[in-house]
């Protein structure tokens, strides 16, 4: 294998891991921008991926010949809806009941996986839901013919990857350039100030949390579709990794994009490093697996003194205390 082939292989694999992390981390960002800590990303990914994969499984068995890319897009909508349904539990406890957000999020994490496995096993006796992995578009016309870039970005790729980049692009615009995005940030930074100028803090936090759930649910679907051929009741800690990506990206969408690329690369290296001649004969899988977590800890150590985290993050807003 020559250098170029290797480069393309690693780049492909990196993007594979990057997209679900990117979508989910952006989800985490929307909740935290509004001041709600969402550590239930992991559970939300499981929840969203379950219902969408269940749908894919049903269609593939009963409607042969359904266009795979269209099927994936409909599944994406289902993942987003079920994801935000689950996160409404977080919004309710965090915003309306003013409960501890970390405990509420933990409860949702612990709830999601057993709940969907219970449903899967009640329906079918096993927790795994298989599906046909035929979503990949072999080559996007024209764009796929560009050397290197085309091979990395536009060959053997499913439509949700493009959706991921598109969401990142939209997120940047929404956060920095729209009234909604600025209000969302205001509510997370200084809710009482936002309230005095007429922004409904509770409503903004609800919306932030629901967007968060929708993206995490979608991220779950992307993760399962791109990494496996069956839903197995877990997403391998990717929700927590996405949380790390969000912090690494300092709650800014454009930085989150680069952070998820870095984490994606580490993940790609942890599975593909044996192909790289320099690392031949070394057992570095463990090293690359833990590196993102250690990098996050180091990044936190370096930045926490002047953290860019939303100031009111994790603090319930009480109108009466204004």
């Amino acid at each position, binding site marked *: 294998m020559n250098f170029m082939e290797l480069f393309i292989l690693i780049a492909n694999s990196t993007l594979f891991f990057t997209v679900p992390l990117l979508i989910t981390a952006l989800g985490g960002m929307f909740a935290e921008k509004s001041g709600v800590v969402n550590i239930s990303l992991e559970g939300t990914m499981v929840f969203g991926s379950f219902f969408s994969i269940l749908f894919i499984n049903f269609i593939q068995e009963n409607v042969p010949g359904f266009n795979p890319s269209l099927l994936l897009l409909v599944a994406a909508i289902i993942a987003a809806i079920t994801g935000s349904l689950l996160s409404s539990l977080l919004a309710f406890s965090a915003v309306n009941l003013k*409960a501890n957000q970390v*405990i*509420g999020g933990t*409860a949702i994490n*612990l709830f999601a996986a057993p709940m969907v496995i*219970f449903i899967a096993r009640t329906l079918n006796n096993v927790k795994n839901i298989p599906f046909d992995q035929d979503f990949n578009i072999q080559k996007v016309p024209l764009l796929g013919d560009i050397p290197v870039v085309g091979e990395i970005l536009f060959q053997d790729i499913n439509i949700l990857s493009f959706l991921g980049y598109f969401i990142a692009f939209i997120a940047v615009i929404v956060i920095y350039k729209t009234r909604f995005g600025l209000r969302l940030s205001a509510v997370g930074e200084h809710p009482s100030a936002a309230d005095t100028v007429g922004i409904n803090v509770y409503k903004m936090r609800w919306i932030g949390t629901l967007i968060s759930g929708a993206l995490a649910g979608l991220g779950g679907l992307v993760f399962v579709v791109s990494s496996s051929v069956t839903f197995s009741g877990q997403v391998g800690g990717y929700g927590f990794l996405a949380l790390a990506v969000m912090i690494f990206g300092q709650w800014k969408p454009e930085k989150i994009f680069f952070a998820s690329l870095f984490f994606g690369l580490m993940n790609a290296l942890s599975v593909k490093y044996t192909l790289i001649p320099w690392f031949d004969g070394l057992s570095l899988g*463990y090293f690359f697996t833990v590196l993102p977590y250690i990098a996050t*800890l180091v990044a936190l*150590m370096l930045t926490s003194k002047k953290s860019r985290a939303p100031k009111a993050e994790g603090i319930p807003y009480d109108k009466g205390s204004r």
Partner: protein
Amino acid sequence: MKNQAFISSVVAILLGLIFGLIIMIIANPFTAFPGLLTMMGGWLAHQDFLRRLGDLIFLTGPMILTGLSVGFAFKTGLFNIGATGQYTLGMFAAIFVGIYGTFLGPTQWIFAFLAAIIFGALWGLLPGLLKAYFNVHEVISSIMLNYIGMYTVNNLIQGDANLFNVAFSKTKAINLNAYIPTTILRDVFDRSAIDLGILIAIGITLIIYFVLYKTTFGFELQAVGSNRFAAKYSGIKENRSLILSMVISGALAGAAGALYFLAKGSVNSGNQYSVGNELLTAGFDGIAVALLGQSHPFGIVLSAFFISFIQRGGYFMQTLGIKVEIIDVIIAAIIYTSAMAMLVKDKLIKILKRKQP
């Protein structure tokens, strides 16, 4: 006050159970009620009563310690979501000494247990230091450390042929001297898993109670928990309190790992760790136990017994065709409702006061 705390826990349990029942009814209306009865005690009324009771008591031991771990940190205002990582490290240390420490003779289990405490404490020390000196939130650092710990332990075990049984992807059986003594308990309880672990757990509970409520140190920890800044201005070294609280919390979780894995189990093969890239759930159970027990050591003993009780019930419920995952759903629902139980309680008190003339 104590009554109110008790009532809000009971309300959380009831809401959790009702939620679970509704789901069971949707899944299968005919088995839902028999299932609930089985879970809430039917499983114990059986000809194997003694053995089942012994197993339950055994499982309560580690559960008490993970509950104490999370609860102790709560008292200092810290949320130790890292109990699972500390538990895993403790488990590793216990198994390591349990296999390599044959020269220790009959005291091997004691050293294995102490090693677990030390490893758990060290894994708790890290988020404590990060919090005290770098202002890193303990929840995020503990989540990262959970994964680092799990992958590290798996890597260490898989790299050591003396520890790892490749065929079953499990750790090998520990030395006989490394099992926590079962004494006469095992015979009394009809060859169940019970051993001295439960007495160790209760002994540790009493120590924790004493430390929290009868010493200046415990008072300082709680002062930091109720108001970090007020405590600081009254001369309490808050950084020291934060770090020590996480160390003790980690030690407790590590001890729980030892208590579970240094046991013979109800069959004599012992409890072995299955190497997989998933976090152990024991630490998360501790969160439910601590919340239900309102972080009070004695409350934690009660709630640990209750959580173990319904978990065992869920295991036996499977004969009715009800999937065992329902128990985790119920426990999660209990955590969710406990998180808001305090508020519901406050509202209830307000309503009650309004009615009084």
